[in-house]
């Protein structure tokens, strides 16, 4: 033991630079894992807050069944319930206004006849809601007589930042200064005026009282959520009611998708970190096969060898892990600090500190120390199993390698074939598994392909460095040591593959959303009800409204959606009634099976239905099947003619039937959403004012332009996705540095060889070119393979999510690919510059003595 320790420490000490770089690799590996997974909860929280806030919703909203006020003290009881991540108390009252309260003009009907005055606690509210300021600032707990209103309210009553809003209250008319403006309400209903809680309490003479507690949960898991909900109920008693986000709501599904993506990124961080460490340590130990062979020849037992490597790995693993966790925490704080102001400014979301859980500490230690040991032991064990002749005859190792490489190649090729085969099964689990197989397969295949690929890229490189005459040397170096080359290149491979995968997922999620959005809401105008997707709560309009619209001069088509709740095979669903002829002109479904041409035509046949992918998955129904639909008049059978969905209902089990059917079987002819297109020659301004006159009589609708609505939605998604990009950066930066590290180690290992080259007459310049050419060839191989793997993994992940019912469509991450290629090559060159200069400066004699 004693001796093993000495030898291990000597190796660390005698190879300071190499030990430093190896430890650095561990630091980066742990940094990625630790940093990323401490930052993810914070990012997830901001994502969750943002998506919830975008729709003005919370996980649960608690009030007395009577709607009465209750003491603020109840808040503490809710906050104490396990699983409640954040809670805040509100005092929210409707203020009914006299006619002509604002404009004092009896001739013009007021658009605002009532307001919600909402008292909030500015400190707590941020943890549950998010307030995206357009201008001005949000409330501060020290404010008196200050208010924040929306842009739409400000416009309709002619107020701006700094002006005064007078409101009738229990203690007489009260003047409030507008200190901030929120975006126009995406969700109509009463416009809200936000004031501080104490202000509201005094305005209503209800000191220490609130009437609503808004709560966010710490979990998106449905079972866990209902558990939290019932704990709250138990804590408060039966006189309280809890309005929770329905488990099939669009929003929850959206959040769950977000969490899935974050989880995937977290796992990638884990893989990335593990691989960085494994790769580097494996390189270092593999270089020492010769020393190990000699020790064996002198009589060192396998156990001794085992312990030497073990101790060395342990020392480096512990040091690297400790440093990596520190650095990771620092990096998290830095990223959050950098993102913080932007988040605060645009979202008014406060991001907290990174969250360190015991699990992630243990995982980091396990990874840092465990992978290092593993990475050391596998080659050490194989080295000790090979005869001691290794020390005397390097050729033996090579012969073994050939055989092993052949085995690895065929195993890898088989894995890749298997992975591709899983695509055909269209089974989410199998495809996911295939993704892993694919990467491992690529790594196994790589060593065999290095020589031919090096020859190919070498040819290219020698064109670039034509006059140096050393590129063939570089290429030769790579072909001679295909494993080492493959190991180095696979650092690039994995790093870039993960980046491309992440880019694919994020692009697909955001572009996919947008594409579906455009298709669904591409009409010129949309008449939006108060609550999109919660159709049952909306007051619709009689067909007269749509008819009036159609009669207007410039209107080409107005198509309406109707709604009925129903059950299909005992599953509660939303039924949307569409008009097959006009719907396709203003909107459209995105089809998973079937197409526009046949599906809408088929819908004209009575009792036919297009079902959404979510419904198809949950019932197992296929095109051509008949399903049992529960109607107010009993069970009827509908035939499924296609599978497809629209943006608004993307995450809800939905069936689409014709207006004729929804009227006949469900007695519904109330329109809940109207989409309208103008004639191509129409004059927008005059058409719009004509439309507005009609809408004036149907105040339940808000008129928006389709493009405006899409923009509004995309903005929200963009901000939410910013959190994912931040996490992506977290993956990218350390892995690129790790790649640099691996290449640098590669050069150090060859100090002696380089000295030899210089001794036989290579100029400094030639040595430099050789190293750079080698790095570029390696980087090119790594980048090419990394792209391939990343595209494949991205595709399979998106497909898997898609099959799992998430509204995603695979989008080729074009800009991601360009960035990746650039990053791969730039870092290849960067990685080469420092070692190349070092190599060129080498003292020849010293280099020859270096072993």
């Amino acid at each position, binding site marked *: 033991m004693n001796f093993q320790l000495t030898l291990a420490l000597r190796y660390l000490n005698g190879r300071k630079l190499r030990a430093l770089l190896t430890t650095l690799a561990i630091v980066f590996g742990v940094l990625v894992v630790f940093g990323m997974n401490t930052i993810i909860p914070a990012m997830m929280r901001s994502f969750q807050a943002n998506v919830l806030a975008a729709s003005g919703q919370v996980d649960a909203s608690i009030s007395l069944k009577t709607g009465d006020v209750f003491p603020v003290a109840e808040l503490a009881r809710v906050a104490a319930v396990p699983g409640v991540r954040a809670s805040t108390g509100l005092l929210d009252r409707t203020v009914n206004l006299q006619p002509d309260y604002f404009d004092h003009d009896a001739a013009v009907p007021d658009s605002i006849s009532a307001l919600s005055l909402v008292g909030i606690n500015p400190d707590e509210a941020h943890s549950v809601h998010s307030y995206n300021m357009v201008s001005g600032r949000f409330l501060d707990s020290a404010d008196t007589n200050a208010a924040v209103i929306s842009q739409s309210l400000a416009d309709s009553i002619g107020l701006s930042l700094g002006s005064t809003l007078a409101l009738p209250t229990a203690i007489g008319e009260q003047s409030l200064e507008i200190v901030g403006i929120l975006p126009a309400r995406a969700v109509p209903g009463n416009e809200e005026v936000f004031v501080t809680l104490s202000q509201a309490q005094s305005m209503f003479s209800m000191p220490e009282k609130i009437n609503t507690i808004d709560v966010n949960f710490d979990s998106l898991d449905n079972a866990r959520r209902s558990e939290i909900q019932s704990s709250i109920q138990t804590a408060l008693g039966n006189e309280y009611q809890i309005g929770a986000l329905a488990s099939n709501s669009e929003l929850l599904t959206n959040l769950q998708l977000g969490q899935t993506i974050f989880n995937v990124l977290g796992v990638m961080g884990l893989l990335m970190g593990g691989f960085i460490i494994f790769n580097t340590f494996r390189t270092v130990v593999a270089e020492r096969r010769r020393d190990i062979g000699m020790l064996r020849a002198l009589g060192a*037992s396998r156990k001794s060898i085992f312990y030497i490597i073990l101790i060395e790995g342990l020392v480096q693993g512990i040091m690297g892990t400790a440093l990596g966790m520190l650095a990771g925490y620092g990096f998290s704080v830095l990223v959050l600090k950098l993102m913080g102001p932007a988040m605060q400014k645009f979202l008014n979301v406060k991001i907290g500190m990174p969250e360190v859980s015991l699990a992630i500490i243990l995982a980091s230690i396990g990874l840092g120390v465990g992978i290092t040991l593993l990475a050391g032991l596998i080659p050490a064990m194989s080295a000790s199993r090979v005869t001691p002749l290794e020390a005397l005859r390097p050729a033996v190792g090579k012969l073994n390698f050939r055989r092993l490489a052949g085995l690895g190649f065929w195993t890898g090729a088989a894995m890749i074939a298997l992975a591709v085969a899983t695509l055909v099964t269209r089974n989410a689990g199998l495809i996911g598994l295939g993704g892993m197989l694919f990467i491992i397969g690529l790594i196994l295949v790589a060593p065999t392909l290095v020589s031919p690929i090096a020859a190919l890229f070498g040819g290219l490189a020698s064109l670039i460095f034509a006059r140096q005459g050393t590129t063939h040397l570089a290429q030769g170096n790579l072909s001679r040591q295909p494993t080492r080359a493959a190991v180095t290149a696979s650092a690039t491979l994995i790093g870039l593959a993960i980046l491309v995968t992440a880019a694919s997922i994020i692009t697909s999620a955001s572009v996919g959303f947008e594409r579906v959005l455009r298709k669904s809401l591409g009409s010129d105008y949309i008449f939006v009800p108060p609550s999109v997707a919660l159709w049952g709560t909306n007051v619709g309009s009689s067909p007269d409204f749509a008819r009036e619209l159609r009669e207007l001069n410039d209107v080409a088509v107005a198509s309406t959606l109707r709604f009925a709740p129903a059950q299909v095979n005992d599953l509660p669903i939303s039924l949307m009634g569409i008009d097959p002829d006009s719907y396709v002109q203003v909107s459209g479904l995105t089809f998973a099976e079937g197409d526009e041409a046949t599906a809408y035509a088929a819908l004209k046949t009575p009792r036919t239905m297009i079902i959404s992918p979510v419904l198809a998955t949950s019932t197992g129904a296929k095109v051509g099947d008949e399903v049992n639909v529960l109607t107010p008049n009993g069970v009827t059978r509908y035939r499924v003619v296609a599978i497809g969905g629209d943006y608004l209902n993307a995450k809800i089990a939905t069936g689409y039937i014709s207006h004729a059917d929804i009227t006949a079987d469900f007695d519904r002819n109330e329109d809940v959403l109207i989409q309208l297109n103008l004639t191509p020659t129409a004059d927008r301004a005059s058409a719009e004012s004509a439309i507005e006159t009609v809408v004036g009589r149907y105040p339940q609708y808000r008129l928006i332009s389709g493009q405006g609505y899409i923009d509004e939605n995309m903005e929200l998604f963009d901000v939410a996705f910013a959190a994912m990009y931040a996490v992506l950066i977290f993956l990218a930066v350390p892995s690129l540095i790790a790649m640099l590290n691996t290449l640098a180690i590669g050069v150090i290992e060859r100090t002696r060889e380089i000295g030899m080259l210089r001794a036989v007459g290579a100029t400094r310049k030639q040595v430099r070119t050789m190293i750079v050419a080698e790095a570029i060839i390696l980087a090119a191989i790594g980048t090419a393979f990394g792209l391939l793997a990343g595209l494949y993994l991205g595709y399979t992940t998106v497909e898997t999510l898609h099959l799992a019912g998430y509204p995603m469509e695979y989008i080729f991450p074009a800009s991601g690919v360009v960035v990746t290629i650039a990053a791969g090559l730039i870092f290849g060159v960067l990685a080469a510059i420092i070692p190349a200069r070092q190599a060129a400066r080498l003292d020849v004699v010293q280099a020859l003595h270096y072993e």
Partner: protein
Amino acid sequence: MSVITTENLTKIYNSGTTAVTALDHVSFQVQPEEFVAVMGPSGCGKSTLLHLIGGLDHPSNGRVMINDESLADLDDDSLTKLRRRQIGFVFQFFNLIPVLSAVENAALPLMLDGMKQIEARDRAIEWLSRFDLADRLQNRPDQLSGGQQQRVAIARALVAEPALILADEPTGNLDTRASDEIAGLLRQVAKDWGRTVVMVTHDPRIAAYADRILFLKDGRIVDDTLLEAKNGSSYEAVTAKLKEIGD
């Protein structure tokens, strides 16, 4: 009792389609305290022979016995112990562990055998001093000359007091003077300290230090000559023999 006995020792390397017979039914014995040189053209199987005797590799046929114990009967662990305690190796290149000092390198076999560090160091220093290296104890291999490195390697081969020293071209990359020094040392090892030495060499001058020369050609022993036991005086005899064999 002989230290080394080989019986029909045969080694065939199969590399893909071609099979190379590196050793072809080699049988001989080496007696205690004998200093044997092995000579022959490049590729005739000298290193292979040494590796088989040292238990670093397994024969395709025939067997090796060290002190009447057949190596074929030993498992890897016993073979390792045998190497550690009974055999000392000296190679041409890469003899020393680069991160260890001279004294640590020399003490390696003792440390591997579990001896206390202080004791092992003392024994190593003792041997290094005999080889004029007392002032280079703390230097790492890259700070030593080639001859000094080989002397450290010989000290290491002797430190565990093995009965048998196997040296594969120990003077292969040394100049004449250093070579003579090493060869003289090996002779001293056999004559003064009673060890058995088998040394592979190309150099007739070095071979002349030995008691006996085995000539190998194409994997077979073509000559086995006893020399007069006198330093350097047998040089002419050796060159004559080489001519006769046609090397």
